[in-house]
């Protein structure tokens, strides 16, 4: 993201540049993420939104260098974390970053918590590994971080197993584990999707409080535009592996430029605005192995598509301050 800077912007914590990630499949290579770029500054929350399969998790896993290679391969790009390219780190150095300077909350809490160990042991392990704490110190700190994320009776809950906890508490444990080492960057992949709204509201508030208190940067991945509106400072909208629009949250919601963003905003039913029929986006997202070549991926579904859209890939270009859009015929042109 280039564009004009506001006065004295906070320092950049994470800058992803031109990231392209492919997967080798039986029928040939496919690209899950294409030329993705974004900038996350200190103490800010960047939302990465898009429909299922658009490449949000692959982007996050690529940043964490957790994609299985093969079948995954990074075709191009740089992932600058505090100005160092994570893609150049050897695995042993990367291991000192993960769970330490970068915390991560994964999309499926049950798969990332080991059912065979107590939650206290699992949080403690992070502290023993990264901080070299002994058992007692790790346990004390574990109780402290569990309390910090609002887990009541943390002193006894440390000895419980994941299945003994409710979904909301498990999610808090995941957050506690991700925050145990005071990371500079938190990557949260759908941290509330599996939760009920009343519990989701608690977790989102908690994340916002912790983020502010720790001056942490957060990459928040979600498909829920409501969550984005309430939590994020800046939003990047993905469609079929590419970022199609990127803007400060107010600007995105009041003046969406990309026809896809515009369509999404109208297609969601909103409280207090009843109508018999909802506007729709015709058709569906092209599957990974059927993405058209050398054109805008949204063109087939786009009500504003012109001839150029089927000939040339629109680059992400700056429209207004910090507002970028990849479209030949955007809404506010």
């Amino acid at each position, binding site marked *: 993201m280039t564009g004009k800077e506001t006065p004295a912007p906070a320092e950049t914590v994470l800058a992803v540049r031109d990231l392209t990630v492919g997967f080798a499949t039986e029928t040939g290579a496919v690209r899950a993420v294409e030329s993705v770029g974004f900038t996350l500054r200190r103490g800010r929350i960047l939302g990465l939104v898009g*429909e*299922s399969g658009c490449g949000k998790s692959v982007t996050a896993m690529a940043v964490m260098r957790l994609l299985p290679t093969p079948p995954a391969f990074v075709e191009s790009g740089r992932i600058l974390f505090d100005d160092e390219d994570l893609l150049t780190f050897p695995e042993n150095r990367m291991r000192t970053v993960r769970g330490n300077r970068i915390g991560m909350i994964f999309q499926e809490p049950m798969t990332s918590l080991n059912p065979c160990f107590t939650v206290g042991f699992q949080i403690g392990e992070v502290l023993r590994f990264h901080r070299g704490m002994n058992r007692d110190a790790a346990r004390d700190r574990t109780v402290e971080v569990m309390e910090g994320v609002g887990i009541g009776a943390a002193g006894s809950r440390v000895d419980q197993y994941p299945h003994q906890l*409710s*979904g*909301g*508490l498990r999610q808090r444990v995941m957050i506690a584990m991700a925050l145990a080492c005071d990371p500079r960057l938190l990557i949260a992949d759908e941290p509330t999707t599996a939760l*009920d*709204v*009343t*519990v*989701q*509201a*608690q977790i*989102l*508030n908690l994340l*916002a*409080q912790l983020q502010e208190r720790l001056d942490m940067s957060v990459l928040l991945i979600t*498909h*829920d*535009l*409501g*969550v*984005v*509106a*309430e*939590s994020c400072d800046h939003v990047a909208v993905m469609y079929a592996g590419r970022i199609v629009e990127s803007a400060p*949250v*107010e600007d995105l*919601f*009041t003046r969406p430029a990309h026809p896809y963003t515009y*369509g*999404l*905003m109208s*297609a*969601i*039913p*909103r*409280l*207090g605005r*009843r*109508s*018999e*029929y*909802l*506007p*729709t*986006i015709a058709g*569906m*997202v092209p599957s990974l192995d059927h993405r058209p070549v050398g054109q805008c991926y949204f063109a087939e579904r786009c009500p504003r598509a012109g001839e150029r859209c089927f000939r040339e890939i629109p680059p992400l270009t700056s429209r207004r301050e910090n507002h970028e859009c990849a479209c030949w015929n955007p809404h506010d042109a």
Partner: protein
Amino acid sequence: MTHDPTMTHDLLKVEGLRKYFPVKGSPRKVHAVEDVSLRLRHGETLGVVGESGCGKSTLGRVILRLLAPTEGRIWLDGVDVAGLGPRQLRAARRDMQLIFQDVYASLDKRQKVGQIIAEPLTVHGVGDRKARRERVMELLGMVGLEPSAADQYPHEFSGGQRQRIGIARAIALSPKLVVADEPVSALDVSIQSQILNLLVDLRKQLGLSYLFISHDMAVVEHICNRVAVMYLGQIVETAPVEDLFSGPRHPYTRALLAAIPRPDLRRRRGERPLLHGEPPNPETPPPGCRFHPRCPQAMAVCRSTAPPEYSAEGAGRFHGVKCHLYG
């Protein structure tokens, strides 16, 4: 079979319905549905909302008699469904169908879409092969799929298209009542609106009545005429949709509405009133009002006495609320 003369306008009437599940190795029972009463008028869409595990799906399944009720009465178009034997139940099933959330799991992967949609017709011996095939083609058209879909398999379709297949199967026998259990929850927003519009179309064309189960309040507000809010097995508030959303009465309904993240930027994080804790275990529901441990307005009486349903005034329309604040 008993007929209830009072229900001239009601397609469905449920009274005092309970469903308890046994707990393995314990004398306790899961109180999944606890004393639920509701009515659904012809052509109406009644939303059932509430958080995970509050008993929405169980309620829907008991009404369809896919699960036997522990207690209570269910009338469909005047027929007492709860009391039907297996034979009569089979006949009654023609009139009530289910649309599933987990579309893919509910479609037999080895069958072609044509067979899947024709299944209810086959089971109930409707028409001959040719007539059934014609009906399948008609149904495919109604749900917006190509005729060629009949000869394809479910895995060849996207999530939204699979839901269309599930809907075609559900309406094959022209049922009176369709229980739609989270029909769009698994779908992306851009597909969700397509399916919601289809459900609205079918309601108009076929005069269907829906019991629409969902945890998404915005979707419910969009599609329903009336809403029932469930908490821990009980319906705590029932009202016409406009009244419920503009003037929620029950503290739980208020908290639920406040918790929804809204894509309208008018509120930002940290500004909403929060409900503490999580719903209690339905094996050991709290005494008194089931919501009292989480209720910001709980009074002494709430801890001991379960509130009856009070009628809150509302432009002459019924607005029921189970809360002592309105007693």
